[in-house]
């Protein structure tokens, strides 16, 4: 026992032990030297003599070390050294194996880094499971009205920190140049609910959150650094935001950017927070913002949901029209909302990377089997001279572990840089809320665990097999050829077949996603994006409270833009297709209202005259707006074909009038009755993969002032201009005209083609990632079958030689090899086809414009895979042609 501890101590105190040893050897040498000097030698001679008598100092040290430490550690080091030597001796094998593993592990690391970010650290809020979003069970969903907010806030038995929030933009005009700030209107409880620390000053008081409360603002730490140079005196400063003076009372460390992530799917950093100031006695039932809350301590989600459901009746009794009889209230964890969209994506990606890793492992296992077979002679000798089976297995395991660890290290950096590159190459706004993918210990330990696991699992089998050799057979054999028996090759064939079938599944998946991406671009979007430029301006502040003011400013700016040479048409809108879709309920005047508070609901957008020309949206019937449709003229509305078909089965919509109100953005129910004056073709407003829904267009000049104010707070005005050609100079000139005309900053300048591209970021990412995985799988499978066939041809050199000597045709032999390889490949293809047929349905929610069992995919992919397999088989088969019978017969 004592010895055990001494040795153990020696392991850990190696340096001390080394020192002790040198000291003792020195002592011995100096004593010897003394002796020789006493015999009359010169000190120099004596020193040399002492060394001679002592023997090799280094050898002594080595012997000493042996005695000092554990044998197995020592052997372990030897195993590793030996493994490195072995691996270096066959660089082809080593590099192939490490490369395959790097691809397999790298793909997993890449996806894990996303999963790690999204799932393991999902919401940067304290206690994310108790953080809920309050919603209505149908209709508006998570969008809420002031009345609903006040009602929910009163449910204090189950909820606390009930917070309303709405993101938008404000114009900061205090600096040298006007600036656009990302802003959020929030309840005073927001910083508690989101867990955002206020690092300077304070957050809002309940009094400041009441109507006509003080104009105060909390700025983000980001803005504080950028705009105010981290000035500690910033508190108490008054700034002009959209024309109103606000006093800065706090600086919030909102680096997690959570508020905005929830407010919209495009999430720029927030700059400033202002109090929402909702009237506790409000009767405003129009839905235009989100409400989040925290569950009260001790209250379960179910209890909160039950209470909310029960409270719906109380609400209905207060606001009879604001909630349909079927509708109710509920709470959902924010986490579920955030993750619901990406769950199936992560499932598919996770499955895909798992397959890639399996293929890589099958590849390496195959290589190890081949290699172990080639080393039977060596292993046999080692066993014969007394190595235990455990020792041999350990040696082989050390080799496979070394391989997988090297592969893991390469995979870690490959995957890490790969995912960063991928995220950089697509628009990340529409992706799952990936914040910052960092190389953290999660990632490193994941890669390490994966490497060790694959090393042990896929190294153990070949090692066990290799160590179970029959000494007699092996030692009698001249070496090299043993282990080529049918059983061994069967195992390898099975591995190759599974590689091909797994690759098949992946390729089908990536083909489906590529077709989805193509279909998105082919989809009839209903508007012409070419040569259209879009840019935005925020009409917020006291000057633009009235819709007439906004409409006038817009008309003036548009007139200037239209006068530019090269401009074909220009218009303004609240909602550029694929960027923003707002919704509103409507009643058809003269018809009885149905069960729901409105007769129907659909998308809603304010547009100026010229909008339909800019996007070349065909007018089907009636007329579109002119500048004469303003606040003084009768209310008008243009609807789309879908709406006409859905709501006017037998009558003519052009004879009817609409009341757009409840549920309309920010409207207080005073929207005028509107005559339907025209029907236009359908446009995909929300996304390319979403079919158009009923849509209403109204002129900005005709919306009520309250609606205008809310709208301006929510979304900036977008300018849309059709040009002959989008040249940089023209775009600059348009921008300049708008800026000069309105005196407001212009931002988010994008061509409409860019807007389309940005909106497909998710699908592009899916297709790209799956294509990368599919190609990796294809490559690995090709390497696998090539390697096996090349090995088999090499093994059978002698047989081929004999056949040739006996008069077989070389081409016949080549065809025999090809036949063998292809029968394996085709087995894999068929199995993979079946598997893909079964699992492709899992991808349904990711697809658009293509069925999970798309016949084209299920014909083209197997053909392509077979072609690649044929190539991989053909190359080694050609070697059979080059066999020289004379050499082959001597081949041992």
């Amino acid at each position, binding site marked *: 026992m004592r010895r055990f501890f001494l040795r153990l101590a020696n392991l850990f105190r190696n340096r001390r032990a080394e020192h002790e*040893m040198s000291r003792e*050897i020195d*002592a011995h040498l100096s*004593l010897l030297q003394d002796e020789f000097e006493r015999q009359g030698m010169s000190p120099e001679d004596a020193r040399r003599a002492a060394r001679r*008598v*002592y023997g090799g100092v280094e050898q002594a040290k080595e*012997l*000493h070390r042996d*005695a000092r430490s554990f044998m197995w550690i020592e052997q372990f080091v030897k195993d590793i050294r030996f493994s490195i030597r072995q691996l270096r001796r066959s660089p082809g094998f080593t590099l192939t194996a490490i490369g395959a593993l790097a691809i397999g592990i790298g793909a997993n690391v890449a996806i894990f880094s996303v999963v790690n970010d999204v799932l393991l650290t999902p919401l940067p809020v304290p206690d994310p499971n108790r953080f809920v979003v309050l919603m209505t069970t149908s209709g508006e969903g998570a969008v809420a009205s002031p009345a609903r907010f006040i009602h929910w806030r009163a449910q204090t038995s189950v909820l606390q920190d009930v917070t309303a929030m709405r993101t938008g933009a404000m114009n900061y005009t205090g600096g040298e140049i006007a600036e656009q700030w990302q802003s959020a209107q929030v309840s005073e409880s927001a910083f508690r609910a989101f867990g955002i620390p206020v690092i300077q000053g304070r957050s809002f008081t309940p009094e400041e959150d009441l109507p006509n409360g003080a104009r105060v603002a909390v700025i983000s730490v980001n803005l504080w650094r950028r705009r105010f140079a981290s000035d500690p005196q910033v508190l108490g400063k008054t700034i002009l935001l959209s024309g109103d003076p606000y006093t800065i009372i706090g600086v919030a460390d909102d680096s997690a950017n959570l508020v905005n992530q929830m407010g919209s799917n495009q999430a720029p950093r927030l700059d400033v927070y202002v109090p929402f100031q909702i009237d506790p006695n409000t009767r405003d039932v129009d839905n235009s913002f989100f409400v989040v809350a925290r569950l009260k301590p001790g209250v379960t989600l179910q209890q909160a949901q039950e209470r909310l459901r029960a409270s719906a009746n109380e609400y209905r009794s207060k606001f009879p029209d604001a909630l349909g009889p079927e509708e109710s209230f509920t709470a959902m964890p924010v986490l579920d909302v955030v993750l619901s969209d990406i769950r199936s994506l992560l499932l598919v990606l996770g499955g895909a990377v798992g397959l890639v890793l399996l293929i890589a492992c099958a590849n390496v296992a195959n290589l190890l089997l081949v290699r172990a077979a080639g080393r039977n002679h060596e292993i046999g000798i080692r066993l014969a001279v007394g190595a235990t089976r455990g020792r041999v297995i350990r040696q082989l395991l050390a080799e496979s572990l070394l391989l997988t660890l090297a592969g893991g290290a390469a995979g870690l950096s490959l995957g890490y840089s790969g995912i960063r590159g991928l995220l950089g190459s697509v628009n990340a706004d529409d992706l799952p809320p990936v914040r910052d993918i960092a190389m953290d210990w999660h990632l490193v330990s994941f890669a390490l665990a994966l490497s060790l696991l694959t090393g042990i699992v896929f190294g153990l089998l070949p090692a066990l097999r290799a160590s179970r050799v029959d000494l007699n057979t092996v030692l009698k054999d001249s070496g090299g050829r043993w282990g080529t028996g049918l059983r061994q090759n069967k195992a390898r064939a099975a591995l190759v077949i599974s590689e091909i079938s797994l690759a098949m599944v992946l390729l089908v998946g990536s083909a489906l996603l590529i077709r989805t991406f193509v279909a998105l671009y082919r989809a009839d979007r209903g508007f012409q994006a070419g040569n259209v430029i879009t840019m935005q301006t925020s009409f917020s502040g006291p000057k633009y409270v009235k819709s007439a003011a906004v409409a006038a400013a817009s008309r003036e700016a548009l007139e200037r833009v239209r006068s530019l040479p090269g401009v074909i048409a220009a218009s303004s809108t609240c909602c550029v297709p694929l960027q923003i879709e707002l919704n509103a309920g409507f009643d058809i005047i003269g018809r009885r209202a149905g069960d729901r508070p409105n007769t129907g609901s659909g998308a809603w957008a304010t547009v100026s005259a010229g909008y339909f020309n800019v996007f070349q949206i065909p007018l089907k019937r009636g007329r579109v707006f002119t500048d004469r449709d303003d606040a003084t003229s009768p209310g008008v509305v243009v609807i789309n074909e879908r709406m006409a078909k859905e709501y006017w089965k037998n009558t003519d919509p052009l004879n009817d009038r609409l009341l757009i109100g409840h549920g309309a953005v920010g409207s207080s129910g005073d929207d005028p009755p509107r005559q339907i004056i025209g029907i236009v073709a359908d446009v995909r407003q929300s996304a390319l993969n979403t079919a158009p829904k009923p849509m209403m267009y109204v002129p900005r000049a005709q919306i009520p002032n309250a609606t205008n104010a809310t709208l301006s707070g929510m979304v900036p005005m977008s300018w849309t201009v059709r040009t002959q050609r989008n040249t940089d100079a023209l775009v600059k000139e348009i921008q300049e005209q708008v800026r000069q005309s309105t005196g407001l900053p212009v931002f988010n300048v994008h061509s409409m083609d860019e807007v389309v591209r940005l909106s497909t970021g998710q699908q592009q990412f899916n297709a790209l990632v799956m294509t990368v995985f599919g190609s990796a799988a294809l490559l690995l499978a090709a390497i696998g079958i090539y390697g096996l066939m090349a090995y088999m041809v090499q093994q059978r050199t002698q047989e081929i030689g004999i056949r040739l000597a006996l008069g077989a045709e070389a081409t016949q032999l080549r065809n025999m090899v090809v036949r063998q390889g292809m029968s394996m490949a085709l087995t894999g293809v068929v199995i993979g086809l079946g598997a893909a047929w079964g699992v492709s349905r899992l991808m349904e929610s990711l697809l658009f414009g293509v069925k999970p069992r798309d016949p084209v995919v299920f014909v083209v992919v197997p053909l392509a895979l077979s072609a690649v397999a044929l190539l991989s088989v053909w190359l080694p088969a050609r070697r059979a042609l080059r066999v020289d019978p004379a050499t082959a017969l001597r081949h041992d």
Partner: protein
Amino acid sequence: MASEAGDRMAVLQGTLGLIVLRTLKSMGPQHAYAIATRIQQFSEDLLHLNQGTLYPALVRLEQQGRIKGTWGTTESNREAKFYAITKSGEKALAEETLRWRRMSGLVDKLLSEGA
């Protein structure tokens, strides 16, 4: 090496520990050099001892708890580690001596019978 060894004997494997224990038992605490010198003198230079090989034996014995080393100074004022036999070392010496006697007796017997 071989030519230098001449008719000297290499230390029989496994006996070095026994010899060291025996030396320490009869001479009291000694440093490695003294042990090496003593062994060589005692065997009248018949035993070839590569002095470096003494160390692993000493370390092993120390780890086994049969000897204990402490640093001290020699008469010539050099520092050196002095080894002393421990209780368990004396016990082991007794056992090993017995085993060796039996062994050598057996070998003697075999050799004389063969002759």
